[in-house]
């Protein structure tokens, strides 16, 4: 067998991994839709999805309650994971993630500010049920704007220093602390109800998503994915070093600026709607590096699918683990994510 055939065979393996992951998503979706307060058999779920069911009540539960939340999990996990891969590639740093760049802090601050200043924080606390923020959209928009402003600031600072990735990370961490302090200050000033609203907002929770939110997140995620996939080749080149990348004709500054901005906007859209969901963007790329390697042509889609599966399964568990209470998914992703991350670290961190 000649070399090119061997190479194609090797690549075929990676393609198979991606196909396998896609299959896993469909399986997880069916499992997720069937599990809950009302147990519905997977067969029934498939029937419902294919429009073949005559169980009207179950169809209502699956299509109107569980499906939007499950699809939101898939879209959000997909989006957060590709933003994570892109950040790690752009920053040449395995720690690249919305959290390290301070984006999550910016979003939390924006939400807190809108609660205090714009009075979006009237909370309805009906008998231990979920606390709800009054004006969901206004809070979302303010949180989103702060994320984008924060990213713009990081890029401005980085621009002064030749778009160095270290400067980007450090500026991000500094801004994160600043927003964290700002949020604390607002929390200190806030009354009980506002405080509850602020804190509650930060718990990333997929049940906040309905079809409209899912639609907007999808509109952000799909072009984002296309952009990152298109640039996957450039990220590979960049991973061999900045000088090498430039010598191959890559406009590294543009690649960094564009990629960072798009990954921030994508993350911002998702966390502004859902609240802060940690670790998906950080851990999925690292899990997939183990399996498909650092070739971004495969790493981007594999991480995306991994993110979708991870968030979907986490959400499913979060919904049922403390029945009749429903945990926000973010609690679970961090609980699972932190030890998993340490495991990956110990198991074999190269370099």
């Amino acid at each position, binding site marked *: 067998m000649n070399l090119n055939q061997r190479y194609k065979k090797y690549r075929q393996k990676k393609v198979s991994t991606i196909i396998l992951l896609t299959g896993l998503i469909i399986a997880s979706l069916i499992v997720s839709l069937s599990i809950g307060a009302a147990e519905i058999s997977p067969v029934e779920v498939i029937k419902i999805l294919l429009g073949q069911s005559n169980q009207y009540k179950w169809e209502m539960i699956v299509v109107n309650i569980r499906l939007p939340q499950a699809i939101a999990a898939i879209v959000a996990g997909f989006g957060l994971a590709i933003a994570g891969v892109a950040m790690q590639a752009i920053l040449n740093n395995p720690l690249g993630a919305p959290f390290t760049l301070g984006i999550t802090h910016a979003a939390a601050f924006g939400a807190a500010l809108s609660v205090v200043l714009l009075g979006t924080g009237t909370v309805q606390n009906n008998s231990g049920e979920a606390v709800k923020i009054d004006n969901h959209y206004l809070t979302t928009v303010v949180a989103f704007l702060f994320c984008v402003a924060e990213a713009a600031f990081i890029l401005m600072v980085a621009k002064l220093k030749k778009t160095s990735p270290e400067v980007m990370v450090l500026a991000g961490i500094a801004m994160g602390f600043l927003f964290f302090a700002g949020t604390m200050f607002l929390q200190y000033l806030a009354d009980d109800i506002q405080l509850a609203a602020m804190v509650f907002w930060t718990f990333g929770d997929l049940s906040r998503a309905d079809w409209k939110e899912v639609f907007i997140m999808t509109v952000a995620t799909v072009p984002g994915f296309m952009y990152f996939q298109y640039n996957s080749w450039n990220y590979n080149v960049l991973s061999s*070093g900045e000088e090498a990348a430039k010598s191959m004709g890559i406009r590294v500054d543009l690649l960094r600026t564009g990629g960072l901005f798009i990954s921030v906007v994508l993350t911002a859209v998702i966390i502004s709607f859902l609240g802060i969901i940690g670790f998906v963007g950080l851990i999925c790329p690292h899990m997939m590096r183990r399996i498909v390697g650092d070739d971004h042509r495969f790493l981007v889609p594999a991480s995306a699918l991994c993110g979708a599966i991870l968030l979907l399964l986490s959400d499913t568990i979060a919904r049922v683990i403390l029945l009749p209470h429903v945990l926000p998914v973010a609690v679970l992703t961090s609980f699972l994510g932190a030890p998993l991350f340490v495991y990956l670290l110990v198991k074999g961190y190269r370099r």
Partner: protein
Amino acid sequence: MKLIIDNLSFAYKSKDVLNDISFRVEKRELLSILGPNGVGKTTLLRCINRILKAQKGTVFVGKDNLYKMSTFEIAQNISYVPQHSRSSRLTAYDAILMGRRPYINWRVSQRDYDIVEKIIRRLDMGCLALRYIDEMSGGELQKVSIARALVQGPRVILMDEPTASLDMRNQMEILTLIREIVERDDIITVMSIHDINTALRFSEKLLFVKDGKIHSAISPSQIEEKIIEDVYGVRVKIQEINNCPVVFPLESIIKEKSNGGD
């Protein structure tokens, strides 16, 4: 075809690094850039393929002005082998294929694969091709880097200290390979290097740089003790072994005006 460096000047902020550097390299020549640390050898290399943009001067490959080309066009003419490449979990094949980036937009064509396969065969790297580069030794990694530079289909290759971290055997292998590239593939090669004896043995031209200027541009047979004493501040003795001049350092010259004692 020639590589012509015409009046290049470069400054970081206000610190002048390169001052009116001009030289030319002919077809089938290997030019070595020599000089003390921090004299701007790497900067000079980077200015040639516009990784850094010189404030003054231009570079021609044949009749084509590099300073008027798009970044991809430059990459199609000149490739660059950095001193250190970061490794990641990519196969050597994928890493070499990256050299086709200036020609590829979205899809890799059969032609690209064919070129990669040809170069891998040519460098006898078949057994390395599907290994991950983060598990390779320095010598193997350098070979991958050179293969990547060749796949780029350049007329000129720039190398920054190609043998810096290699053992003796690997140094010989890499330098023999570079010679072959210069002679067989007709690719002009410019490298920066610290080891004068290697430069004397393997290159057609030596360019000594001092204080941002060219101190002297000579062929190996023209080497004199005076030049090296001037450029490096080291007293040396030159003798021939196998018809090749060899520089043996004796002692560093203590200057009257030393900057700060011990």
